């Protein structure tokens, strides 16, 4: 397998992990919205209400920064990162 193929395989792996986490916070938890809302969550808000107001939104912000850092590491590992002067 060439260097580029290995790079792409790792990139694709990272994509699947990222999309799996994205799925949990955007879709997965809302399958159980009614049940989860019965329980008190962060700052005293009901759980589902808190996720729609802040929780999922914040999770997405963190997820994107985490993804960007991981992808940069993958690019560096295979020598595909950009030089600063480009």
């Amino acid at each position, binding site marked *: 397998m060439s260097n580029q193929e290995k790079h792409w395989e790792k990139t694709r792996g990272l994509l699947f992990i990222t999309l799996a986490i994205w799925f949990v916070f955007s879709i997965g938890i809302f399958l159980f919205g009614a049940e989860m809302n019965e329980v008190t969550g962060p700052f005293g808000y009901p759980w589902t*209400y808190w996720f729609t*107001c802040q929780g999922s939104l914040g999770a997405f912000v963190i997820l994107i920064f985490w993804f960007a850092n991981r992808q940069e590491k993958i690019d560096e590992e295979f020598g595909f990162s950009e030089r600063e002067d480009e």
Partner: protein
Amino acid sequence: MIKGNFIDNLPRVYGIYTGGFIGFIIVMAIAEQMGMTAKAIGIAFVAFTVFIYALIGYLSRTAQADAYYVAGRQVPTVFNGMATAADWMSGASFVAMAGGIYFKGYGYMALLVGWTGGYVLVASLLAPYLRKFGCYTVPDFIGTRYGGNLARFSAVVVLTVASFTYVTAQINATGTIASVALDIPFQYAVYVGLISILLCSMLGGMRGVTWTQVAQYIVLIIAYLLPVFWISNKMGAGFFPHFMLADEVARIGELEQQFGFVKNAAADLKSVPKGLAGITKAHSAVNATPWAFISLALAMMMGTASLPHVMMRYFTTPSVKAARKSVGWSLFFIFLLYSSAPMLATLSKLSLIDPNLPTGIIGKTFAEVEAIDWYQNWNQANLMFISDFNGNGTLELNEFFMGGKAVVLATPEIAGLPYVISGLVAAGGMAAAMSTADGLILAIANAISHDVYYKIIDPKAETAKRLLVARVLLVIIGFAGATIAAMEIQGILGSVIWAFDFAMSGLFFPLVLGVWWKRANRQGAIAGMLGGLAAGAWYLVWVRTGGSGFLGITQLTFGIFGSAVSLVLMVVVSLMTAEPDKATQKMVDDVRVPSGKSILGKSH
């Protein structure tokens, strides 16, 4: 002053700007104490901010294609994040969203999740790869990746349908605010809004729009957050509302139990002015089925990743790495406003319905409510209405009606904040609608001038002529949008949601598969774009004309059907026809790594 190493000076330039704006607010507050009228304050706020944007637009004028189309590809990560946030948050986010949450509760909050979650798709599936590609517009990517004028043209068609649907709503919003703040009829105010929009983008193209959008973000975020914090503190609800409103949310639930949701007779509802709604849904309870919530969120997320005016913001970053980080910053700046909207809705609702609060009106007599100043003002503006359906003389929860916009626009006044805050909110709404309209009009005009005129009609055209065509188109599209906006066909929010559905129907899979599936070819992409758009449009018309729909897909989520058709068509047609040639496959390989030259040259 700011020429030359402008980019290095950005933090200082916008620091001074922010300080200046805060100074302006303070001056207005003092002027109010000294007797300046509410109307004059409103005019001053809108006129002053629009003048600043126009000045930035003028200073950013350019005659280079690279600067006009992609701001010279040197916008730093964080500033691009701010510009994207302003580009993204429209009149719908600023003026209408809190109102929607106020009236519809949980079912509507799917939009909060959808309009943020989509950025994960943008960051992981598309933005870095399209940045590496080096295109000027989204159809530029489609046209080069799949090859051929028909593919390019199909992408322009989808882009125009989606963006035009969106832009009429934004010009409508600028017109509404300009007509209230400047006190002129809506039909004229629409054109005042349009001229302000064109002043920002005409001379500087993407460069002008970028630097005005950063300025507009600063205005709109101050205008949104300041009232939320102020009201929360004034009501004693909490110093930091986002973490401290649990008691208030619970109290609203209690009051809902106590009052009950009384259903009004159809005959009674006829007397309520059009566009106003009563509180009929629980505030924090789960009141939608999982599929209703998830399908709306999913449609908005996939739409986010297909809207060209957002995607093209990431063409302006210096590198692929910066494009990825920039998506994170965009979402962070959007998060600041979106996480505040439910808090504003909570504070607004409680301040009106809690009889224990001095601002509460439920349980008061009609004579008392009708004597309140702010009620008279907003009733006159056709945004509030009360009617004694049961004839007992006291106002019940089901007898109070309000327009969605009033939650953002009227709450400061109801809570007893000085008028200067209302002026600030008007300026913020104007900034939100203008920045989005700018991005949209530019996306359409650039696609037509670059992809249709330069790439298809006259590939030998000189830069000066190309940019002239782009500017003429900008004006034509703007006026077409304003003319349709002046007819007031649909509400702001409905048409914004439709734009997302159109975009995802035609563009989501052709874009994503262009990077992630090498086997995707021209025939498949054309079938996917045109078939998806046609299927989505057909579904919308069918449901609007009395069709029953299926699988719980409504007129707000028709993109789910359109994009499914698009995916199937694209895969089937691609597999039935020949695979892309070696050069195209090599191109896809090159797009997938950040290093090396971009596919399209610096000036193409």
